[in-house]
């Protein structure tokens, strides 16, 4: 579905936000999930570790308990666990696709995508017949950064595409939260660089307070002032 809901959303963005914002957006489901409430992206590796999967579920459950919509990219690994956990714990989720709306990637997530379209929200900036290209995914990651109030990075290797989302979120002034075990991983260089520019470390001690205090950057102000 394409209608003027996204053009209204796009018109409210600052010039800085519009730089990487899609010019059009296709969606199926409840578009108000984008314009209302706090939204947090939960992202990370496709080849996530068992501990990473466990952390994804715990974080997603915690977000749902706080009434926060879980945003992710329908990919294998962290994304799939994030969407499934949001659904399992009766929360809301937004899938931001790196493919046209009719195409689940990976194809094993076809049923998950159908459920998200039916009961939540699926969005894509790619029209039907848009070719599958690797660069679609960094573009998708920037869109996720735009529509989210915060991005939580569960696990990401040195060359992971998740880094694109982290940097775009920092550029937009959104919160970037890096799991403590990732921030302290001496084999990675990207966490230290992101922390230098404002990413925060998410720990067991601060997770509750942090998630309770995420600014609502993205909700519409639909009253006169």
């Amino acid at each position: 579905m394409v209608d003027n809901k996204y053009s209204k959303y796009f018109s409210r963005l600052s010039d800085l936000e519009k730089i990487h914002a899609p010019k059009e957006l296709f969606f199926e489901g409840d578009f108000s999930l984008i314009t209302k409430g706090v939204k947090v992206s939960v992202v990370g590796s496709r080849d996530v570790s068992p501990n990473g999967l466990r952390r994804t579920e715990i974080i997603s459950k915690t977000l749902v308990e706080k009434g926060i919509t879980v945003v992710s990219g329908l990919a294998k690994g962290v994304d799939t666990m994030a969407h499934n956990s949001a659904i399992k714990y009766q929360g809301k989720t937004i899938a931001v696709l790196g493919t046209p709306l009719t195409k689940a990637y990976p194809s094993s997530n076809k049923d998950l995508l159908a459920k998200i379209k039916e009961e939540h929200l699926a969005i894509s900036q790619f029209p039907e017949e848009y070719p599958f290209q690797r660069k679609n995914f960094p573009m998708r990651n920037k869109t996720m950064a735009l529509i989210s109030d915060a991005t939580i990075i569960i696990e990401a290797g040195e060359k992971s595409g998740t880094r694109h989302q982290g940097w775009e979120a920092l550029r937009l002034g959104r919160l970037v939260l890096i799991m403590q075990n990732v921030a302290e991983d001496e084999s990675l260089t990207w966490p230290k660089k992101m922390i230098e520019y404002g990413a925060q470390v998410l720990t067991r001690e601060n997770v509750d307070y942090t998630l309770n205090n995420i600014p609502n950057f993205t909700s519409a102000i639909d009253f006169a002032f």
Partner: protein
Amino acid sequence: MPSEIINYGTLLDYSPYGDSEESAKSRLFRGAIKAGRPTEIDLLIKNIKDSPELIEFFKDSTLVPIPKSSPHLPGSTFPSLEICKAIANNRFSLGINSCLRRITPIRKSSLQTSGNRPSVKEHYDTLSVDITIMPTKKIILVDDVLTRGSVSVACVHKMEESYPDADIYVFALLRTKSFVADIEKVINPSVNKINYYPVSGKTYRKDVT
């Protein structure tokens, strides 16, 4: 000797947790301000025209944006600068001088419990001033949100070293009111003081009730 009393102005009240309509509005404004959206910021700043107190506060001043909690990422949002631009574009102030920088990151105050917020000294140690000619004696350091005032006090102290003859004030577009259940109105211009106690390193906002 670093100042122990800092005069500040503010335009909007912000409630982090209140349930009223005004409290909810204040949180949406906070989000738009922190996203650095010029249109919303300009509309809010225009309310200064209805406050003789704030008009006088800004008169004949140069604005200096207070940096975020980390060094500036080129091409990224800078809410304090957007607020400065709106104030200057509406001719409440004479100009802007972006001389104050954050040279090392510090944990975000808004994400810390009250016992773990960075102190005045911790903020002070992360700041630097690029000394340039300041065209006015009155300097107003501009921030998006004022809570306890530790950032403000640290920035004032840093600027006083470089501009010892200047009169330095602080303006925050939003003032946090976490000690009341709900705020009655969002637009609430005010001029008040922050006390700094050098022995303890603590700050106290005079309007806290």
